[in-house]
């Protein structure tokens, strides 16, 4: 059991350091087009082959992981914080505040986001550096992606508000801020971290979809999202299975995170 956990930790540590030091690890710049060898199979020079423009897939995977591994958790954190604040206070305070907050959540769940995002894109200037586009994209995801988590957290917080231990703590004279800090948050923590971890892959995939609307990470910067878009073409992927590397990396990283996190949960309960 703990061996699996160790493997996960080592894997993540290796991944993170490879990704952080991509400038030294990557065999080629992510945007360099080796135009003589587009769509090449893996070789010593190109460990994972090249993409349809001859760019080194391994380097792009490293840089793309950097973008996604740093920004998807940041966006997930942002959206979880918003969800925790809105959902948590709605559920804990109850009353009209809960009704208003839940109405806001429902509204934001039912909004035609596609349309709104397109409007947002229309408002953004065209000359945006790729790095800015990345940050804007994930910030948008973070700001907009809270509503479904918010609902889950709200019902969690409501259960806590109605619980005996909160009543007991109140009867012992605990102050409201201590109640939130010590009674509510520790009990919401499993919900919050579950929301956080599930948001990460969702945001990575959402970013890929936004790319189709011209909202994602701009070329030539790679991200897991736009690398995954390279998998749209199943017959091609079947013929060249090494192209699955981005999705393998995504699954591996997310499940490693989940392994470590679940172990902590088990200890907790």
């Amino acid at each position, binding site marked *: 059991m703990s061996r699996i956990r160790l493997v996960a930790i080592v894997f993540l540590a290796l991944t993170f350091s490879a990704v952080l030091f991509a400038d030294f690890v990557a065999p080629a710049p992510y945007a360099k087009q080796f*135009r003589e060898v587009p769509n090449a199979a893996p070789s010593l020079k190109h460990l994972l082959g090249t993409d349809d423009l001859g760019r080194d897939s391994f380097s792009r995977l490293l840089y793309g992981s950097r973008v996604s591994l740093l920004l998807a958790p940041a966006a997930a954190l942002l959206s979880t914080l918003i969800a925790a604040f809105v959902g948590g206070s709605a559920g804990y305070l109850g009353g009209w505040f809960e009704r208003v907050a839940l109405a806001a959540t429902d509204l934001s769940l039912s909004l035609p986001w596609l349309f709104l995002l397109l409007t947002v894109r229309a408002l953004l200037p*065209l*000359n945006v550096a790729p790095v800015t586009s990345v940050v804007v994209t994930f910030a948008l995801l973070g700001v907009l992606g809270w509503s479904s988590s918010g609902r889950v957290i709200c019902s969690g917080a409501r259960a806590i508000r109605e619980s005996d231990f909160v009543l007991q703590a109140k009867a012992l004279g605990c102050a409201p801020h201590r109640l939130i800090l010590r009674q509510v948050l520790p009990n919401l923590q499993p919900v919050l971290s579950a929301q956080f971890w599930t948001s990460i892959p969702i945001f990575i995939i959402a970013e890929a979809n936004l*790319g189709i609307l011209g909202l994602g990470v701009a070329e030539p910067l790679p991200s897991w999202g736009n690398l995954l878009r390279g998998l749209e*073409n199943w017959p091609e992927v079947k013929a060249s299975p090494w192209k699955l590397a981005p999705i393998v990396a995504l699954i591996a990283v997310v499940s490693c995170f989940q392994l470590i996190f679940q172990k902590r949960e088990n200890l907790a309960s």
Partner: protein
Amino acid sequence: MSRRMQIVLASFCFCWLFVSTAAAQSGGELRFSIQSEPKTFDPMLADDDSSETIRYLTGGFLIRLNRQTQTLEPELATSWKVSNGGQTISFELRRNVVFSDGTPFSADDVAYTMRTLMDPNLHSPTADPFRSVEGQVKIDVKSPTAIVLQFPGPVANLEELFDSVAIVSAKSPHRDVAGLGPFVVAEHKAGSSIVLRRNPNYWKRDAAGKPLPYLDAVHLDIQQNRDLEMLRFRRGEIQLINTIAPDAFDRLAADMRSAAHDAGPSFDTEQMWFNQVASAPIPDYKKAWFRSQNFRRAVSQAINRADMCRIAFAGHAQPAAGMISPANHFWFNAKLRPEETDVPGALKRLADDGFHLDKDVLRDRDGHAVEFSIITNAGNKVRERLAVMMQDDLARIGIRLNVVTLDFPSLIDRISHSFNYEACLLGLVNVDLDPSTQMNVWLSSASNHQWNPEEKTPATPWEVEIDRLMHAQASTTDNKQRKEYFDRVQEIVADQAPFIYLVNKNALSAVSPTVRNAAPVVLRPQTYWNIDSLYLAAPDPSGRHGE
């Protein structure tokens, strides 16, 4: 080798040949997909691809453009003559032709067709090109086989227009179903399929005198999804695909070599242009770049078109020489060549305009770093690849290019209403041979004059010149004279580069090896333009595809 001879030979040695010839005589049902439900079955109202397909397969025409030779051929008219400066056309009609319901065909039917077509209340898109001047068409039936049409003013490219006028019967009691084409509509399941049956009264015969078409029926499946279409083709459920994307084409070619047909460069172009609209909400110094011929040509020279063809199109494209594709045999200006990639040349042109390189960054006279964005429609993978390749090419001359993909409506809004963009990358689908249909692109007052639409007065001397030449070519029916004018337009466009033409896509299609006599071409309809002489070979049990 005569057909009789073939049969004799086949019965002795080439069994497969015998089988396929026998199949030709027993017909067969050809299947392929159309992308959407036809909006109409009335040939005079056809405006969408599917309706035009139905018209092509069921209509009888006076004159037909041979899609392979790109020349006009007699059909229901055995001969014709244009006179009076392109205002009058007289037809001599074919004898002993009857409609699918048995009603005989005569000059009265042509008269009736033209009268109906030109009725302003019908709003026929087919009629529009005939209306150069207000007024009535004078129709004069000289005899049952001779008719003269006189238009109120000269009509550009008059004879070729009859390629889309399907003749309807004046007298048939079943006027809406009686046709003169190879097939008639037999069955229509809304949203799913259309079955066309062989017209038993079709007038055309093959060289051996056997009545055409060979096929018993054509089955059209309404299928929007291109991937499913390809899947069904691979399964042998359909036999033709008119256009295929380069990637899918290569995959098909890898598995079914003989089914994939690359007919060479098509009329379609991929091009980019800079926004030259005076009122556009972009900085003045950028407008100055975009108005500079040297800047536009330098960008054009920095682009590696050969790489684009090889990489983005997997070799199924050719560097474009200009606005007219070399595939357009008559109208292409053969003196033009695709712009060669020439980085030093590009830098020299830029230097002439006061640009200079400062540590790998190109700066203009006032020190502004040269950076611009190019918009293109999201979801078109090939076009996105082109944009990213341009990004790399332009970095070589110190220009930073930002690629922005937009959904189509926002893109159209930017290029035709708000003009809030700097450069745009799009493709243009060309269907007509004749440049007269391109008036709405090249006249400075035109709405499709994308780099600067609907100008009150031409902004530059060369636009004045293009306006003059386009009007001049429209005012004569002498094609040699028109070609001279139009060659000049092509030269000016190449020199000024208001549109920077990148590539001509190849016409890629798929034809099942069981379809005989197929000869895919670049003009629409690429695979079934010769529908009346196509036939299906019986399935070959040995698995070999004899050719």
